[in-house]
């Protein structure tokens, strides 16, 4: 029964206050007397039975053996607590709230205690206030309207004579201050910063810190009181003062300049900390107040950034800290870590930088995982400052890729990508490929796209580039980002003919292997790329003429076996028959197979292809069925069209900086750059009224953009990338939702043409529209949305262009939509916007409610070191965007 309340270490209290061990004045005895007294009096004044004590409730709940049992105990108690709240009974309110807080921690609803907390706060008793404020911090936050009711109580208590009541109020304000509350109470807090009482001063300083966080405009009023905080001796006041100043400096460049003059003060405080002898009060394993040291080092970093004079003033002390700090314990490394960050960020002497990098090198070899993690983290932050110094640790970093700890692997991966350059690309990629193969799913997407980018940037040769891409395809499997498929196809399509043959042969080996081992489902992007390439260059794959091409790969292995035409088709059949492959992949395979019919020459293979294509005429999936029927027509009534229609694709243009979307400038008529297949098609239907496909003939201003890929996958089959070369594909595209061509037609002669070139007015899906909406035009920054419809909603492409004279860095575009919409933002093309440069970012919006789109945007960037924030609301989207 008598569970000890607590074993306080009373030594912190002066003996005259230590009443606990005075036998004549034993608290436990007194409590017993009180309880008995209250229980005696209670039935008269209170109708309720004595409530369960907190301790007993916790015991009961812990004794519950099942979740249901626990729930019933809690429900019973909650019902009881609610009824006491109704009774306006104040005797047990404090205890009941305490119980409610415990129940709340278990995850049960406790919102009905909010108002009771306010009543407790308003009580004159300290016990009530203490529990009341605790409850307020746990149960209230700025999302509840009730929280505004607390403002008045806080204001009263901030003026209390008891320092602990003021302390409670400040603590609560610091935890749950909303912007409204911050505005109402800022002046009280400012007054308390100037209080002579250190206990109140430090709390008020942190309150001010929170207030500025919430409402940056309120900073001005705290400025005068803040500077004097640094003249205090009390470490609590010092550390909160430094925290407050740090926040202010990060808040505005003007304040940052204002505080430049405190650098000598900070240096002096830091020096005193290091040089002062042992002080038991602030010592942590031999280091004097590491908390304060770190805060000061961080503030110095902010003050010294881009400022030679301030940096000069702190060079000495940083060197002193870096050399004199004891490193055998975590606390010493904590300080070194912060020191290194400061050295790298300010304009420090080069010898100091060498010292810092060496410290990181030591960190990297440390046995403690935590230290290794911060080393990697810091190297990543400094790699742009001094790449060559970080390069020296490359082997260690690559070693960290194999670490069992995901946190360390993630850092090592990012650092590895930062270290890749033209000289080490081969060896780095080899390591990263091994990493990619073994890494968790969450890394694969990021790692593979970073590898594709690095390969593109530093590829020592075309062959190496292709080899690397194919390996990434093989190892990243389905985690590969969609655009990698199209960009790989583009690279293959522009390669030299013998390189294309090499690609076909290399991909054939991978395709055949995954078809045989049955893991093609996990590598669908690979299957797609392989299908496209083999379809295009199948003749080179089987031809003896390609024997001259060396198939020795990066590892010096040549495992290519030239397949027979029939074996290729057998493998295709196996894949097409598989139930696991996605429709998209099968579409690639089916069209590729049709293409092979014009590449392969032997009769048995032709017959096989025809049989397979025919079977798709009755495929359960409408899209594949359609394709099957159309392609089999190319064997029957339109056999003469087949060779021309299935001719090799022309070289595709690179997608440029933004792989997700085309450049919006009007291109020259796409049909001109398209191959003669398109011309042949156009010739066939010249003069025909059914040619209403505006993409090519009537609307050269709006080139087909590849943001509609999801709605017309088939388009990719022919073009891979629907850039300018997509013209014939666009023509084919119109029949995506056309009725199956096998339907009885009045003019069977016109069937194929109907299927292929049906008038969009009748059967085609609504074509996408490209509208552009200007969202922001300010200070030379122009933000425009290119609006188009996509399969599942709308797709907006944000294009930010700058005519400002300076480069905008840390460019961040954010957008918000009303709750009925769903917004999916792709990653931006970059964060740095040079003059005349451009950043694009794709936003996918789905709108189940079909209401008009409203979009709120926020753009932030740094220009010449000062941050700029712009906001705007965009309402003028075309109303027909969602239909």
């Amino acid at each position, binding site marked *: 029964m008598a*569970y000890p309340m*607590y*074993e*306080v*270490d*009373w030594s*912190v*209290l002066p003996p005259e*206050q230590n009443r606990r061990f005075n036998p004549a004045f034993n608290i436990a005895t*007194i409590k017993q*007397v*009180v309880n008995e*007294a*209250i229980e005696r009096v209670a039935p008269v004044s209170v109708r309720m039975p004595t409530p369960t004590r907190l*301790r007993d409730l*916790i015991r009961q709940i812990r004794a519950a053996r099942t979740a249901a049992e626990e729930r019933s105990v809690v429900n019973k108690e909650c019902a009881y607590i609610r009824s006491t709240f109704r009774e306006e009974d104040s005797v047990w309110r404090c205890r009941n709230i305490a119980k409610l*807080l415990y129940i709340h*921690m278990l995850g049960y609803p406790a919102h009905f205690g909010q108002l009771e907390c306010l009543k407790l706060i308003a009580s004159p*008793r*300290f016990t009530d206030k203490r529990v009341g404020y*605790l409850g307020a*911090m*746990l149960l209230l936050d*700025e*999302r509840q309207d009730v929280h505004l009711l607390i403002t008045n109580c806080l204001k009263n208590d901030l003026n209390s004579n*008891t320092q*602990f009541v003021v302390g409670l109020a*400040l*603590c609560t304000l610091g*935890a749950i*201050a909303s912007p409204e509350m911050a505005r109402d109470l800022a002046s009280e807090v400012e007054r308390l910063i100037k209080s002579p009482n250190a206990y109140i001063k430090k709390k008020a300083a*942190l309150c001010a810190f*929170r207030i500025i966080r919430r409402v940056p405009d309120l900073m001005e009023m705290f400025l005068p009181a803040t500077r004097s905080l640094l003249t205090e001796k009390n*470490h*609590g006041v010092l*550390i909160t003062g430094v*925290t407050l100043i740090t926040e202010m400096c990060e808040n505005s460049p003007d304040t940052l300049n204002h505080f430049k003059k405190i650098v000598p003060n900070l240096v002096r405080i830091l020096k005193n900390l290091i040089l002062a002898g042992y002080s038991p*009060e602030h010592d*942590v394993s031999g280091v004097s*107040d*590491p*908390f304060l040291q*770190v805060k000061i080092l*961080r503030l110095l970093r902010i003050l010294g950034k881009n400022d030679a004079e301030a940096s000069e003033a702190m060079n000495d002390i940083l060197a002193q800290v870096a050399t004199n700090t004891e490193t055998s314990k*975590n*606390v010493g490394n*904590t300080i070194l*870590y*912060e020191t290194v960050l400061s050295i790298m960020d300010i304009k420090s002497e080069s010898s100091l930088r060498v010292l810092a990098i060496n410290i990181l090198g030591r960190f990297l070899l440390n046995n403690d*995982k*935590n230290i*290794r*993690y*911060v080393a990697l983290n810091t190297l990543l932050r400094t790699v742009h400052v001094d790449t060559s110094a970080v390069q020296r640790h490359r082997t260690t970093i690559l070693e960290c890729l194999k670490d*069992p*700890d*995901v*946190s*360390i692997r*993630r850092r090592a991966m990012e650092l590895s990508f930062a270290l890749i350059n033209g000289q080490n690309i081969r060896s780095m990629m080899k390591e990263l490929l091994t990493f990619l193969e073994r890494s968790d799913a969450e890394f694969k997407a990021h790692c593979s796209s970073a590898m594709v980018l690095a390969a593109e940037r530093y590829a020592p040769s075309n062959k190496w580039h292709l080899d690397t891409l194919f390996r990434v395809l093989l190892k990243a499997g389905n985690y590969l980002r969609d655009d990698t498929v199209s960009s790989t196809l583009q690279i293959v399509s522009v390669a030299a003919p013998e390189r294309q043959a090499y690609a076909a042969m290399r991909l054939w080996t991978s395709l055949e292997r995954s078809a045989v081992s049955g893991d093609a489902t996990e590598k669908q992007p690979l299957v797609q790329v392989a299908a496209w390439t083999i379809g295009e260059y199948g003749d080179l794959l089987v031809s003896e003429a390609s024997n001259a091409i060396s198939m020795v790969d990066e590892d010096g292995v040549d495992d290519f076996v030239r397949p027979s035409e029939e074996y290729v088709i057998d493998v295709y059949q196996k894949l097409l028959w598989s139930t696991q492959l996605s429709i998209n992949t099968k579409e690639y395979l089916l069209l590729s197979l049709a293409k092979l019919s014009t590449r392969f020459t032997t009769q048995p293979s032709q017959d096989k292809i025809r049989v397979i294509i025919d079977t798709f005429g009755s495929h359960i999936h409408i899209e594949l069925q359609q394709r099957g029927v159309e392609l089999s027509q190319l064997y029957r009534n339109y056999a003469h069209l087949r060779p021309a229609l299935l001719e090799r694709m022309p070289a595709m243009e690179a997608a440029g900086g933004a792989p997700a979307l085309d450049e919006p400038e009007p291109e020259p008529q796409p049909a001109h750059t398209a191959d003669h297949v398109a011309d042949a098609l156009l010739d066939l239907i010249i003069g025909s009224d059914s040619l209403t496909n505006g993409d090519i003939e009537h609307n050269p201003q709006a080139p087909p953009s590849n943001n509609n890929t999801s709605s017309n996958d088939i388009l990719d089959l022919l073009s891979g990338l629907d850039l300018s070369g997509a013209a014939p594909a666009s023509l084919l595209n119109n029949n995506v939702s056309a009725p199956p061509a096998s339907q009885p037609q009045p003019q069977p002669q016109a069937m194929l043409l109907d299927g292929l070139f049906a008038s969009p007015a009748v059967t085609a899906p609504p074509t996408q529209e490209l509208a552009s909406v200007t969202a922001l035009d300010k200070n030379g920054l122009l933000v425009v949305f290119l609006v188009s419809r996509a399969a599942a909603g709308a797709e907006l492409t944000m294009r930010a262009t700058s005519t400002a004279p300076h480069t905008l860095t840390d460019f961040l575009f954010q957008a918000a939509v009303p709750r009925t919409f769903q917004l999916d933002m792709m990653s931006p093309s970059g964060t740095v916007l040079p003059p005349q440069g451009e950043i694009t970012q794709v936003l996918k919006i789905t709108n189940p409610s079909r209401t008009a789109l409203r979009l709120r945007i926020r753009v932030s960037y740094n220009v010449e070191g000062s941050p700029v924030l712009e906001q705007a609301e965009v309402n003028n989207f075309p109303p027909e965007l969602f239909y």
Partner: protein
Amino acid sequence: MMQFMLLFSRQGKLRLQKWYVAHPDKLKKKITRELITTVLARKPKMCSFLEWKDVKIVYKRYASLYFCCAMEQEDNELLTLELIHRYVELLDKYFGSVCELDIIFNFEKAYFILDELVLGGELQETSKKNVLKAIAAQDLLQEDETVDAALREVGLL
């Protein structure tokens, strides 16, 4: 700045939660649930840091309890470990070799101690002595009130 601090047991039971950012209750519960699962799944040899959503989780296990802080990107992870350790030391001093049961049965005291150490997500006091002194003085204030009320109740005052 610390965004929140959670204490939970090896069985995944929440023992203490302190939020310095305003989230709806539902989100808090979701974060708590996900985080507890993620942290408990990590092996003891792994490092104490975890990049999780947009925060950095710094956690450390003391006996059967996990102390877990969500920090912002700029914060010093190693210092957060020191902060956790400082809190544990304070609990230990206050309860006298603290154990999980102390924190379960006296959770409000654990909150009071934390509130004297951290305010608004930032450290407010670097001296252990000062924190304990403030707590003890407030406990005393409460006890004085109890005594007062008792004496009043039995008619001695």
